């Protein structure tokens, strides 16, 4: 072992599926990749609260209201786990917020689309959470311990959310014509953005190989995307709706569904900040952060006061 470099020891652990922990040596690029990925993931949870949160006050029944509220709250919780995991890599939550608010950090582009009807809440649960899970389940086995453990908790809740989303759509599918139209329209609007959640095609995804060697990633974007399409193409039949892709059809030879070409222009446009809600989402978060500044200051000032009072009391004793 004495002859092995840090790098070799590290890669050896990764290869043997031994988790890397915060105090272990790790390549700087590994650390930076993880910080970027985990914080981006955390930001996505936080920004992701907004489109669905938009319907909490208008949920059409008390049961749905409670479920939705709990779900959005879960997302805040996921953000919390993930920020904590990222913090073990030597970045603070405030630094990550700063990167988010300045536009330096990314978050999942899907949340730059608006939620226009109640059915969107169902479509987000079914498609967006569905795609997220597909991405996230392999992350439960990723090489960095704190991240992997956070993902285990996240995934458990996400699959619950996905079922709830599907159930909303199922209820709408059995409802009035207006409700069915609402649901089909939501699926039409969310399908392609969901497909794009897996990121660019493998040929345009240069970091995949390194990430797979580090076991931060275990499947390529296109592998996961295909899996997702295969599942949704079946599930949509249960709903009695259609996916907005005329080229979607089963391919006996490949054992998968073929599907149409993705409009990467739109994808890149939204990533560049030109989605329907990019400005609104970031503005909402910045506003929450700025409006909350005095609250955070007050809390800190109070803690400080208490500490001083306790110290004074001890000194006097």
């Amino acid at each position, binding site marked *: 072992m004495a002859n092995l470099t840090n790098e070799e020891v590290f890669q050896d652990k990764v290869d043997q599926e031994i988790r890397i922990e915060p105090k272990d040596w790790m390549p700087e690029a590994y650390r930076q990749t993880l910080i970027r990925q985990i914080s981006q993931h955390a930001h996505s949870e936080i920004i992701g609260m907004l489109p669905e949160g938009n319907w909490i006050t208008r949920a059409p029944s008390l049961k749905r*209201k409670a479920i939705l*509220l709990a779900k959005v709250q879960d997302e805040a919780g996921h953000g919390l786990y993930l920020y904590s995991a990222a913090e073990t890599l030597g970045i603070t939550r405030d630094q990550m917020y700063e990167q988010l608010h300045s536009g330096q950090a990314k978050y999942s582009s899907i949340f730059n689309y608006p939620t226009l009807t109640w059915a969107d809440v169902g479509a987000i649960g079914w498609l967006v959470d569905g795609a997220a899970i597909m991405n996230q389940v392999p992350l439960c086995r990723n090489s960095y311990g704190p991240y992997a453990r956070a993902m285990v908790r996240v995934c458990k809740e996400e699959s619950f959310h996905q079922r709830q989303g599907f159930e909303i759509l199922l209820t709408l599918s059995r409802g009035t014509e207006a*409700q069915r139209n609402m649901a089909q329209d939501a699926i039409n609007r969310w399908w392609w953005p969901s497909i794009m959640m897996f990121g660019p095609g493998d040929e345009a995804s240069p970091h995949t190989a390194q990430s797979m060697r580090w076991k931060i990633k275990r499947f390529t974007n296109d592998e996961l995307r295909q899996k997702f399409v295969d599942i949704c193409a079946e599930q949509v039949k249960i709903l009695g709706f259609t996916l907005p892709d005329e080229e979607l059809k089963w391919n006996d030879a490949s054992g998968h569904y073929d599907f149409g070409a993705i409009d990467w222009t739109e994808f890149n446009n939204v990533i560049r900040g030109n989605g329907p809600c990019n400005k609104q989402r970031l503005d909402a978060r910045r506003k*929450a952060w700025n409006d909350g500044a005095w609250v955070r200051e*007050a809390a800190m000032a109070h803690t400080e006061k208490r500490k001083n009072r306790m110290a004074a009391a001890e000194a006097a004793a």
Partner: protein
Amino acid sequence: HRPLVQYILHLADTALILGHRNSEWCGHGPVLEQDIAISNIALDMVGQARMLYQYAAEIVNTTNVGTAATEDTLAYLRDATAFKNLLLAEQQNGDWAVTILRQFFCSTWQYYVYTQLAECKDARLTEIAAKALKEVTYHIKWSAEWVIRLGDGTEESHQRLVQALELLWPFTGEMFIPVAYEKEGIAEGWAAHIQSLQQPWLQKITEIFQEACITVPERQWQQTGGKTGIHTELLGFLLAEMQFLQRAYPDSEW
């Protein structure tokens, strides 16, 4: 059973409307942990409202054969003049100080009300109250801590808390003035004897205010009406938003 139903609706509406207001914070809180906390309280409020509405619906359906009241018809198909929530519950979130103080006042009131109801003569209310009590106990603790933190925090937070107090205090008196259906309930033993709760409520408030370095206002004129359906101008807008889908797509399952 009309007075009993009205009383249950008064409790349910207060919980729902307060929960609705708190839920407006979801995704917009000043600190992520507190975003979760306030959403959690909203969730508890909606949960309490549901138990109460379900009970009210059962009574209504039993009394008037042929009606099909549900928790949702009660929440979504009554207009403002039929809502019986405390005026305090419908006041706008304002800043964090207003939200916190509103919660502290309401939770403390709910705590004493549910404590009495947990021992009242109506078995179902007893059950609901006992369950709610556990949640409300935590809500008081959480909101009281924040009242102290803001009052004894920075100069700005202190000032904001004082302004919140000015805004909300006139809406607290209503809590302890029984209306007709409450009087019947008090006589029959299924409603909280709210006059007797004013003292302990005030004592709890005073205690926390002391720690928060703010003073309980002098006696002053108090707003009333919420319990009998005469609200502030805010409730109509809240309901228009909350009830939209049920109103726009009647007779649908969601």
